[in-house]
């Protein structure tokens, strides 16, 4: 077994017990990343020096007999919209240029304090707008199980890196499925926490009321270890909730006697064969484990969630992206002679097509003549959706549903029809509208070798219960394996 293949838990145990050093772990991870990167392009920036420095510091701590932290010596890939002091942070956009943040995102601060080592910054859709990684201005990332296919998005680089064994875990952000969908496409686990559980400070915003940071990993226990570090109140993020004290020590037999619901309104929708197979398999496991299968209704979600989501996300996005004007940082053209011209040049050249489309759409949605019809209406529908989920969780402890209707598409084929692309997020984005936690867990591989995952949802603040349930399922279904597609033969 190579060091890069170890889980978070195994790495921490080995480093703490001096079986191997943090530096050895980091070099092994680095070697694996370098071996795969030419095929996968999962990273925008590989942080060799930063990571080595951190590894040495951990080893020195251990030599001095100090506590190196709960994630000591574990390499991590951060999605490139998470600010890292002194390390270029791009949000995969030209508009940020070579901006190097003067401050750390809270989540990165927490991981550093816990002893994690920065391996690199993961590729993503530009400003997290997309579900293929195809809108990145740094080019595509390939799916490590099939290099001709997309890894999903927007956190595709983080997911591909975790699946290919660059690092035992990675962080992504999830605004409408951007952790859960690439986790499913790359055959690993991914967790979107309850809105307010993890700080957003220092995370470049897309849709602020929907964005949430969460981990990717290859075991449920690893997700729990990382969540234990991340889930804490941060005064710098006013939407972070104080006093929750989430405890991620996982409970055994978490599904016994629990009601797991299927959503009636989704039943008629078309679903790829391997995903239907996966669902059957999981339902069988649930029954065997003593869970009760029930049905809930989410009519508003099924009909309006997609429209509601885009109205809110794009309205917020168009204001969030107003700050990229070339005045303080990032891309400049140097040719403009007045400030209006500068704004126009920076914004038309700095943003990619998808981002510009969404900014324009968001601006129109909040225009005074349409706002009532779109933005304001969407905020009302959102409240209905949240209430519908609340009602559903009176009848069920968890909801089981697909992550996507299809398996990962071929690169280039993906969503030529933009609206069809938006609609493929039907199963993931309602979760963000209601602020719920959602877990994508690995189920298995299809006949043609593509991974399949499903989603388990719970009421707000049931994050730990979701992971406990995921652990039980993992016991039956097996842990994700490291994808070999990235390594040259």
């Amino acid at each position, binding site marked *: 077994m190579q060091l890069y293949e170890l889980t978070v838990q195994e790495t921490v145990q080995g480093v703490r017990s001096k079986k191997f050093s943090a530096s050895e772990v980091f070099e092994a991870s680095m070697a694996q990343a370098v071996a795969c990167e030419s095929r996968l392009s999962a990273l925008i920036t590989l942080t060799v020096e930063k990571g080595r420095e951190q590894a040495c510091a951990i080893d020195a701590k251990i030599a001095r007999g100090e506590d190196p932290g709960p994630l000591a010596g574990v390499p991590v890939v951060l999605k490139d919209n998470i600010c890292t002091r002194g390390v270029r942070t791009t949000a995969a956009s030209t508009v940020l240029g070579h901006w190097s943040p003067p401050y750390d995102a809270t989540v990165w601060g927490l991981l550093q304090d816990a002893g994690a080592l920065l391996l690199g910054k993961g590729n993503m859709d530009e400003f997290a707008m997309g579900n293929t990684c195809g809108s990145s201005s740094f080019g595509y990332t390939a799916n490590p199980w099939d290099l001709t296919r997309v890894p999903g998005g927007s956190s595709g680089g983080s997911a591909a890196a975790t699946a290919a064994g660059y690092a035992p875990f990675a962080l992504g952000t999830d605004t409408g499925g951007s952790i859960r969908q690439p986790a499913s496409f790359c055959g690993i686990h991914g967790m979107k926490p309850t809105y307010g559980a993890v700080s957003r400070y220092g995370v470049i915003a897309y849709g602020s009321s929907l964005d949430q940071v969460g981990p990717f990993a290859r075991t449920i226990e690893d997700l729990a270890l990382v969540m234990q570090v991340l889930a804490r109140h941060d005064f710098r993020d006013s939407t972070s909730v104080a006093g929750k004290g989430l405890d991620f020590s996982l409970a055994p037999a978490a599904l016994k006697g629990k009601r797991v619901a299927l959503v009636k309104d989704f039943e008629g929708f078309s679903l790829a064969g391997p995903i239907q197979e996966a669902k059957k398999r999981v339902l069988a496991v649930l029954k065997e484990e003593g869970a009760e299968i029930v049905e809930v209704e989410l009519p508003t979600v099924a009909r309006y969630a997609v429209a509601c989501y885009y109205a809110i996300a794009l309205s917020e996005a168009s204001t969030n992206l*107003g700050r990229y004007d070339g005045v303080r940082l990032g891309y400049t053209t140097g040719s403009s002679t007045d400030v209006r011209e500068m704004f126009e040049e920076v914004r038309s050249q700095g943003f990619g097509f998808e981002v510009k489309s969404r900014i324009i759409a968001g601006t129109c949605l909040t225009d005074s003549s349409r706002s009532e019809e779109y933005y304001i209406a969407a905020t009302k529908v959102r409240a209905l959706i949240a209430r519908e989920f609340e009602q559903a969780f009176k009848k069920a402890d968890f909801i089981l549903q697909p992550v996507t209707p299809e398996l990962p598409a071929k690169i280039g084929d993906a969503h030529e029809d933009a609206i069809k692309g938006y609609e493929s997020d039907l199963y993931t984005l309602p979760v963000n509208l209601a602020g719920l936690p959602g877990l994508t867990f690995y189920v298995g591989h299809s006949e043609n070798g593509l991974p399949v995952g499903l989603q388990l949802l719970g009421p707000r603040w049931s994050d730990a219960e979701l992971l406990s349930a995921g652990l039980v399922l993992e016991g039956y279904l097996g842990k994700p394996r490291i994808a070999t597609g990235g390594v040259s033969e």
Partner: protein
Amino acid sequence: MTEEKLTFMPVIGIEIHIQLKTNSKIFCSCSTDCESAAPNTNICPVCMGLPGALPFLNRQVVQQGMLAGMALNGTLRSSTLFFRKSYFYPDLPKGFQTSQCDLPIMENGWIEVQDSEGNPKKIRIHHLHLEEDVGRLQHSTVDGRLEGADTSFVDYNRSGLALAEIVSEPDVASAREAVEFVTNLRRRVRYSGASDVDLEKGMMRFDANVSLKCSDGRRGDKVEVKNMNSFRALERAIDYEIARQTKILSQGESVLQETRHWNDARGVTTGSRTKEFYRKFIVEPDLPPLVVDSEWEARVRAMLPEMPEEKMARYIRDLALSEDAAAILTDSREVAEYFEACVAAGGAPVRTANWVLTDVLRCVNEGCSISAFPVSPKVLADLVTRIEEERFSTTQARAVFDHIVETGSSLAEAVKLCGVTEGGFTGSDLAEKVRGVLEANPDVLEEILSGKDTKGKKVKFLQGLVMKETRGSAKMPDVEVAVALALEVAKGNSGGSSGS
């Protein structure tokens, strides 16, 4: 055919921006000290609008907003939201201003002024809301001159300072009323402690919405005049705009609804050609609703001091002060509080008021700070009491007062150094002084004793010298008696010696 002369009635609403007094900015912990700081030193990721930065609301700002709202007689909203107001400008780091706009913290306030006939009139205040300030632009040539600027710099020190925007109803009828409105408003806000409202430092800025109602029933469109930084500018801008619109309407033309800029140097308003793109505000998703519960409101209300108008009425009613005296004393909260501290320390109100109005305010006008005034309220009360009890003359007390103002010495020291004697000169002290004067002036004494001072002039002269020696501490009747007694003694002595 008779032609009636048209008359125009101004309809004016005022918008006021006030910088709230807080130690740190509205959404971060950067210092609000912009006076002494070099450009772009009081900044952080939040007030620079860096990618990923998030606001957190400074509760001190809310409290100051509540105080200001209470001072303007308004009602507070228990739950409010912040919104994003989007536009592009280099001094606006996030591309939007975070503002309470649609859901303000205070509504339905009012300020009293006098109308043109001298009757009390309430100017209604629609609302007061909290928002953030933007940065400052500085245009300059590369060599630093401002003329023909080709480079612009932005200083973000002011970005994120806490502002209260106050919007009046269109109840103001003239430039004079507008000035009285903002004067009274400013006084009450200063009293509340919500802001220093220092106009010189740009802590209070005005915009005015001016339109005219014509006697023939026509109603001119509203013009928003921006950029007034002083009472005088507000007054001039409104007068200018009334005259401009009157002229337009008199010629039968119509006033264009627009935003105009007040040019203080030229004394005119000029139209701006840029059309603002109007966008509906979206809820600021990074800030949860702001809840002001009744407990918090009560706590802040308890901090609100007595307001100037109420104070003035109380001074007239309970302390028997004249209206003028009460008005001047209550113009500034610090002066009023000084006065009240003197009274609390036992100073007789009317005499204390006179002292504050003349002697204390004279020093304050010369640049002395009232909050650290060298003559403490206790000392002034002491001096006033000594005068009341005729232990000090007014002259003596003033000498002591001036000495303390100049040197900052204690009362005891000042009394000693000024040579005045506590309780005045009577009895043996006075007799001692008289004996000294007689000994120093043997020729005058000789004249009196020889009976040449038929008109008593020389005796008066000696009495004057004694008064001078006691520095006004003695009372004239006492001096007269003491001199007469001493002369009697001298006469006896001289008679005895001549007989021997």
